[in-house]
Each structure stands twice: as C-alpha cells, then as structure tokens.
C-alpha cells in the first residue's frame, strides 16, 4: 500500500514535470507544474513532513504558480512566437551547471530520510520550535529576503512602466 502510493506520487510527479517541459502552450505548462507540486506535497506527507507538505501547496501551488500564470498571460506569447526561440549556448551551460550542483548536493546528503520509521514528525509545533530556537537568526534573515523581493518588484514594475 505504502509502496504503491509512493510510486503513484513519484510517478505522477515525474510525469507532470516532463509534461511541464514538453507542453507546447505555456498555460498548460503551468497547470502541469501545479500537478507536480501537488504530487510533491503528497510525497512530503508520506515522509510525515505535514507542515512542509501544506507549505508546498499553499506557497508554491497556490501563490507562486498564480504569479507564473499572471506572467504568462501578461507576456501572452503565442506558440508560433515561441517557435523562433533559438537554444542559446549560455542556456545549456547554465542548465548543465545547475544540474551538476544539484546532483552534487543530493549525493552529499547521502541516504536521507528513508522511511517514516525514524519518527521525525514534521508537526507544526516541532518545526516551529526548531525554527525559533536553533534557526532564529536565519528566520529573521528570511524577512529581509522577502523585503528585497517586494522592493525588487516595485523597481522592476516601475521600470517597465516607464519604458
């Protein structure tokens, strides 16, 4: 049962992510990405990381993807306009570097949380306690990051309005 669910979720995630990449219409890409996030949330639930699972849905699927959809509709590229998009060598390099970094990071982690057996319950209380004791300073730093994001928005929006 557990295994079946895992493969359903993981398979769904991979399939949705592939569909995101190969969909011809950017709006469909966005929809598939939401599906992929939902499947990821399911995987988090299976790892007992409930808070992370709900944050995945709330922030990624519910907020960031709305922004993505807005951007897609804001730019409103037709698929024939996208046809002419050439693959830039820089893109390949950037993607390759990112892939390398990610695989290094993942392999450094080693055999991570393998099952729910190690009773690491991601309940809100537990996460919150660690967040506000051990990681209090990074937590406050996050607010600066969010502030930078807002300021960045305003500057970008302003510039494009002036142009």
């Amino acid at each position, binding site marked *: 049962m557990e295994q079946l669910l895992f493969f359903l979720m993981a398979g769904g995630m991979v399939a949705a992510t592939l569909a995101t990449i190969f969909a011809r219409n950017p709006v469909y890409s966005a929809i598939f990405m939401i599906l992929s996030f939902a499947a990821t949330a399911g995987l988090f639930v299976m790892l*007992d990381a409930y808070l992370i699972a709900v944050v995945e849905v709330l922030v990624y699927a519910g*907020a960031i993807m709305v922004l993505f959809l807005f951007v897609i509709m*804001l730019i409103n590229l037709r698929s024939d306009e996208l046809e002419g998009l050439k693959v830039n060598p820089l893109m390949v390099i950037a993607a390759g570097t990112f892939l390398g970094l990610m695989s290094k990071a993942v392999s450094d982690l080693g055999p991570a949380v393998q099952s729910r057996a190690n009773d690491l319950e991601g309940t809100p209380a537990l996460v*919150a*306690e660690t967040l506000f004791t051990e990681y209090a300073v990074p937590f406050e730093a996050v607010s600066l990051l*969010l*502030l930078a994001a*807002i300021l960045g928005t305003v500057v970008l929006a302003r510039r494009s309005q002036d142009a």
Partner: protein
Amino acid sequence: MYLDYHAVLVFLITGAFMVCTPLVLGMLFRPKNPYKEKNLPYECAEDPIGDAQIRFDMRFYTTALIFVVFDAEIVLMFPWARVFQSAPSKGVALVAGLVFTTIVFFGLIYDWAKGDLDWVKSFQNKRRVQD
C-alpha cells in the same frame, strides 16, 4: 495522524468522482446542435473584434508579487502563533515575530508610499513618472 491523510486522499477521489459524474452522465441526454452564431464569443450580440486573450495589465502582476511575499510571511506566522504561548519568554517571542513582520511590512509601506498600491494611478503620479 498519517492515516488522516489517507482520509483526505479518499475524499479527493470521491470528490473527483462526484464532480465528474454529472458532467459525463449529462452527455448521454443532452441535445447537440451547434450553429455558427452559437459558437461566437458572447458580446451582447455585437460582432467580436480582435482577440480576447489580451495582455494583462502590469498592476495585476505587482499585486501577485506582493501576494506571494505575504503568503510566505503568513505561512511562517502560523508556526510562530502555534508556539507563542509555550515560549520561555513571551516578550522575546513577540519581539521575534514583530521584527520579522515589521521588516516585511516595510515593503508594503514602501509600495504604498511609491503609489504602487494605488489601483487608479492619479494624474499626479503619472506626471511624476513622466518627469
């Protein structure tokens, strides 16, 4: 605890079933006779001009970005609220939460002051941009 999420999964499947059944079942009974006028976009009997999938206004994008930031902030506020009372010192906990929210709120205040929260850009604002 974990099993409660199974219930959610079962609920999701039941829900999807309940949503899809009437849609599919109805197909068996419905009439289908499309004609040209029926297939036009509804514009109160006017002939439609141009494409409808217009580009969004920039303001929607700004709103969405501010929303994403505050959504992230709220997600972090709930765990904080959860442990607030059990903190060894509520004063410190309050200050920690306050510092966090105030910094994020500076962003809102900045947007406000710069007029990015104004939905209708005032004439004055437009002039300032042009200068």
